[in-house]
């Protein structure tokens, strides 16, 4: 094993151990305790119909509550298209 791969294996082990501990320390999957209620999401579920008029709460989040993120996301797609067209353009006039 080369020196590089040796270092890589060692550090990957460290990172892996810590990340697995992260997984164990997260709140239990699918269970929300008394002191760990998802207040933001409950607010959205309760109010998405009256505040945005959308029956689909996810669409309510995507286009209303976090609409600015969606603008960013649309921009990312626009950027990628512009980038791909730029990269594959003809170089000579």
């Amino acid at each position, binding site marked *: 094993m080369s020196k590089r791969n040796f270092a*890589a294996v060692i550090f*990957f082990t*460290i*990172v892996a151990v810590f990340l697995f501990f992260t997984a164990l320390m997260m709140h239990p999957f699918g269970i929300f305790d008394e002191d760990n209620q998802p207040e933001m999401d409950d607010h959205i579920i309760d109010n998405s119909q009256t505040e945005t008029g959308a029956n689909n709460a996810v669409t309510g989040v995507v286009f209303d509550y976090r609409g600015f993120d969606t603008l960013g996301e649309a921009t990312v797609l626009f950027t990628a298209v512009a980038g791909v067209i730029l990269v594959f353009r003809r170089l000579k006039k």
Partner: protein
Amino acid sequence: MLDQIISTFETGSGFWNPLVWLTALVIAFLIIYIVRGFGKREYKKGTDQTQAFLSGNPEYEKDKMHVKANNVYWGFTESLKSVYNFFGKMHTGNVSDYVLWFVIIMGILFLIFGVI
């Protein structure tokens, strides 16, 4: 506004004032101008005076006269060859290695924060 602009900047052991500096600059230029006045006035363009003198040898071509960037600081890089070899080895130009450095830094940070 104006006195705010030209106010003095102090760091504790040194200071900087634009007016002081400009005065110093003007004085320096005056001195340079005076020294320049001592120069000889017999210089003429287009005569032998403008030719470079290389112990009587003919001048090289212009391209050869110019010291290339490769040769500048040759002594420095030569004497610190070991350092440069180390740094050169670090810069492999391989994407995987770039990411590996990221993983290494992340691992070190995990160790620092996890152990202490």
